[in-house]
């Protein structure tokens, strides 16, 4: 379905976003991407979406090299990116082609699914952060893309709404048989949704680990096996030490981190 071979993205200022990424996504697979802030996850999605053609290496979709923006790709960006001059319903139906009446109906349906019924005529400036993000999610799902790239789609949502939308996403996934690449910071979410997890690390980001999520679907959020895998991942991310005890003021918590630079005893306040 989607194949990356040693893909690297370098910015004109010499900075690399990520380096030598290679992986393959099967049809109907959900791949979770985890990694520290700034390790190149968004840049990776941009490259796969075809929005950024200045990369080295090769990307294939259905064995054909990627050229420009693939027609079956849908993207949920890290920011809502709503058109400020369109109201909510027009924003949702923004990417739909064809008859505008059926488009509106479809858009309305998805608005209800993301819990925003009654807000059709609001403009983006009248929405809360989470509501804007939900509109963006609806806008993307309504076109039922085959390959869906999601960049932290649920990070602005409360726990309850987040769960609703995760389940909504699973339904869309089932019905459309789509392949998904999901960037997330929420390990529970990654484990609940993905078939495979890619762990990136460093600046530029490199692929340090691929974890198969073996738990069968439908999954339970409280599953023991998932909890165990979560511990594994946390260990992998060197997070367990901090998990079990509050950091003391003089402990250098940046130390075990590749980006670690200096002590956390800051003079400005002492």
């Amino acid at each position, binding site marked *: 379905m989607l194949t990356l071979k040693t893909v690297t993205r370098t910015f004109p200022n010499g900075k690399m976003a990520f380096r030598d990424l290679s992986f393959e996504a099967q049809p109907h697979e959900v791949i979770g991407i985890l990694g520290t802030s700034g390790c190149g996850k968004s840049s990776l999605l941009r490259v796969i979406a075809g*929005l950024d053609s200045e990369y080295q290496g090769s990307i294939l979709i259905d064995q054909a090299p990627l050229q420009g923006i693939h027609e079956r790709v849908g993207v949920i960006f890290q920011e809502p990116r709503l058109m400020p001059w369109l109201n909510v319903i027009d924003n949702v139906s923004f990417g739909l082609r064809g008859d505008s009446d059926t488009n509106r109906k479809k858009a309305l349906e998805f608005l209800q699914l993301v819990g925003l019924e009654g807000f059709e005529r609001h403009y983006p400036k009248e929405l809360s952060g989470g509501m804007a993000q939900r509109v963006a999610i609806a806008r993307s799902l309504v076109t039922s893309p085959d390959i869906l790239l999601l960049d932290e789609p649920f990070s602005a949502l409360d726990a309850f709404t987040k769960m609703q939308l995760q389940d909504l996403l699973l339904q869309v996934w089932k019905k459309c048989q789509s392949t998904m690449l999901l960037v997330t910071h929420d390990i529970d979410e990654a484990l609940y949704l993905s078939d495979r997890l890619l762990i990136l690390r460093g600046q530029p980001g490199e692929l340090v680990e691929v974890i198969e999520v073996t738990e069968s679907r439908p999954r339970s959020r409280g599953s023991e096996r998932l909890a165990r895998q979560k511990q594994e991942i946390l260990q992998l991310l060197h997070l367990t030490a901090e998990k079990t005890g509050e950091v003391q003021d003089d402990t250098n918590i940046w130390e075990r981190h590749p980006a670690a630079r200096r002590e956390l005893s800051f003079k400005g306040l002492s």
Partner: protein
Amino acid sequence: MTHSARFTGIILGGILPLVLLVIWQVLCSQGVFQPYLLPSPLAVLDSIVELAKDGSLWAHIGITMYRILLGFLLGVGLAILFGSVVGFYPLAQRLLDPTLQAFRSIPSLAWVPLFLLWMGITETSKITLIAVGVFFPTYLNLVSGIQGVDRKLIEVGKVYRFSNRQLIHRIILPASLPSFLVGLRGGLGVGWMFVVAAELLGASQGLGYLLVFGQNTTAPEIILASIVLFAILGKFTDALLAKVEWRALHWQDSLVHKR
């Protein structure tokens, strides 16, 4: 805006012109300004009333408004055409923009002999000359508006594989609307300024004609009457555009459009 808010707006906006008028009138009746230099507001009003009485005022205003309207539409149409192409296609920008920018600084009066040559003393030549004035500010603002559109929004359209025409139509033009509307207002202003030059192209009616006529016959109250009419009509047409602007930009999350 509620009805009463608009009303206080008019009142407040009227204070300054009124004060200026009163000062002007007082200075004139004090003899600081001689009437052959600067007739009093009342004298100017008189001559406007006189023009109105014999009906020629409406003819002057009517024909000038007609020319402005057509010239504005023509100029804006061309500005949208060239502006979108130049703003969107870097190659078009590099080919066309330098030349257009060069034409931008040619004064209205300089166009007169050329237009006379190309189009004679027809109504078309006058309207086209006004369109030239309207074109440049509109074009400039549109291009800069387009080039300033947030890349993030354009990418959304690209993901939906919008054609370039769709990108322009559905994202770039709406997003550059604030800048474009300022351009329209600027263009209208320059269009009004071009009226004088346009009406040097063999017009025997119109505000520009009235102004030049007043200058040729050393008639200060006619000069001032035409200036006052220019100001009033210019303000009036600008207010129309400002209203369009206010309505069209209600979605802006900015200082003025806050609630």
